[in-house]
């Protein structure tokens, strides 16, 4: 039997909100797929758009960026910068003929364990429906 496609989702989680939210999901024993690979960053604004493209070209089926809710950023306004960068990044993806649906930005606070699990489940389903990212084998830089 062919094994079901399990996407690879690189998840950049800010230390203060989303990473803690992910911890809370665990503490509450909420279940979400193993597709998620969390990478802790100090702030979502640390996520360099070029790095996201790199992840994508390297074969990530999806990239999730988790930050604090607007107005709640530990560093005042980092997440507003992230929001703008992700908006532009999605445009760049479209222009390059890539699927912008493979990038997701979510605001997940430290107290939103259930939301973290929900986002992971939802996003995994979205990526499953998009299928495997073939860019790795079709684009060479």
């Amino acid at each position, binding site marked *: 039997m062919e094994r079901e496609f399990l996407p690879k989702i690189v998840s950049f989680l800010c230390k203060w909100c989303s990473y803690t939210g992910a911890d809370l999901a*665990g503490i509450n024993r909420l*279940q979400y797929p*193993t597709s998620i*690979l969390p990478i802790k*960053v100090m702030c979502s*604004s640390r996520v360099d758009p070029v790095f996201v493209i790199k992840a994508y070209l390297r074969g990530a089926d999806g990239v999730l960026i988790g930050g604090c809710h607007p107005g709640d950023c530990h*560093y005042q*306004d980092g997440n507003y910068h992230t929001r703008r960068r992700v908006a532009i990044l999605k445009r760049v993806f479209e222009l390059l003929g890539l699927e912008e649906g493979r990038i997701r930005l979510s605001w997940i606070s430290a107290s939103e364990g259930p939301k973290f699990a929900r986002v992971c489940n939802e996003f995994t389903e979205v990526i499953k429906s998009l299928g495997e990212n073939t860019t790795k084998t079709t684009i060479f830089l």
Partner: protein
Amino acid sequence: MGEKIGIYICECGPNIANKVYIDKIIEKISSIEAYKNKELVIKNHKLLCSIDGKKFLEEEIKQNEFTHLVIAACSPKDHESTFINICKKTHLNPYLFRIVNIREQCAWIISDRDEATEKAIQYIRGSINRVSYQSPLEEKKLDSNPDVLVIGGGIAGIETALSLASKKRKVYLIEKTSKLGGKSAKFRKLLPRQNCNTDVIQKKLLDVEENNHIQIFKETELEKAIGFFGNFEVILKNVKDNNLKTELRVGAIIVASGFKQLNTSELPKYEYTQDDDVYTSLEIEEMCSQNGKVLLKSGEEPRSIALIHCVGREEKGYCSQICCNYMLKIAQYLEQQSSDIKIKEFYRDLCLPNKDDQFFLENLQNSAIDFIRIKDIEIKGNKIKYIGTDDTKKEIEVDMLILAPAMEAEDGATELAELLNIQLDETGFFQEAHQKLNPIATSTDGIFIVGAARGPSGISESILQAQAVGGEILTQLIPGEKIVPEVKVSEVLEALCKGCQTCLNVCTYGAIYFDEDRGISVVNEAICRGCGNCMGSCPSGAIRSKHFTNPQLYQEMVEALR
């Protein structure tokens, strides 16, 4: 010397041991071809954070002389600091250590034990990769100055100064007017029990003036402030003679610049002139303090008075919190002054949130005061047009009107925010570092906000905040103790920076400056908090966030993409 990486898997009692196959993890990691050039030591332990566990780990590190350490255990929130302390004890640089969260983000979220084991292996491999790319970082210790500058001589500033001076801390208290005490010194009586003001505020004023540890600068403003927590250099200037300057060095700065009342001439629905008997609540307080009673401009006693709440409430978009309370207080002054005065209070909603307020209100409701709830109101001189809650329009005329204008940030708040590199929020008051978690700090370390400068607040709340700041400073800024700034800061790589200064614009903390001579941006490591926003913004990839570099993250990531 080659790499020798210690990998320790904590069973966390049954928490991890019953959810993944630890022996399989050890077997798999030991057999990975890619690690053949590294020396790996992989072991497990029942509970690494226990006394036994810590001792075990300490001995292992010493015996094996690891170059790097990976611990697969709980969330870093729980025990990263525990293991960092062990690193420090064994002289392994803590930045060559990495904790892998295989509990909260692995064992507890996957019910299938095989899948969880796979996931744990992936996480651990990611961290083994990453840790080899980590660099040792050294904490820098900086001398600090324990003295404090307080800006604003109102009740919040005074209380802050007193609480710091009570522990013999040197405080410089600056006030732009010629008098200390601010607005609260003008009040005749204080809520909630109508204590006489002289007992409370005036006593504090005396205490401040007489305190040897507090140096007061009246008619003085801040001209310049540079530096960072523990080491600020400030220049003060006299408001009358700008050439009269004072240079000081302090470790922390407290903004207690207070509020002002909204200028009612900005509101078209409130039309009156200087000749009309229309007063703001503060003017009435002053009048009461001076004359002991409220009188009309003609010198006669008024026979009918309207008190109007919420003046400018809608326009400002926030509730000033204290007005309902003090309007009731003024009503009580009037009632006590003469039983012949007809008093009407026009309000929309009563905001009486403190535990004593209800009692105070009930007392007044039993008196002859007329409480009228309205939807809208307009005044022209001493004539009032209003719409009641039943939508009927009514008009009345009174001898005197007393308004409760909304509280706004004091003049000069914008300039002060700019000088100190802190923010104002959308209401114009100073913005907290975090509304809930850090409500008296600002975005700049070592700069605090108290009292009505950070939003509408009454005397007791201002005093609470002042005492909180006092405690914060007394515990954070200790004479003789060094300050350790953030280590995981950003740095600019000179060879790659093309001087576009994008990073200067995104940095909330003003931690980056432009070096004109070299044509590059430079990070002031004492101010940088290490968020990495500059790195995310840099179009030339010239910024490196220490401990979160691209190669480090990349090495962690490739494991996910294998």
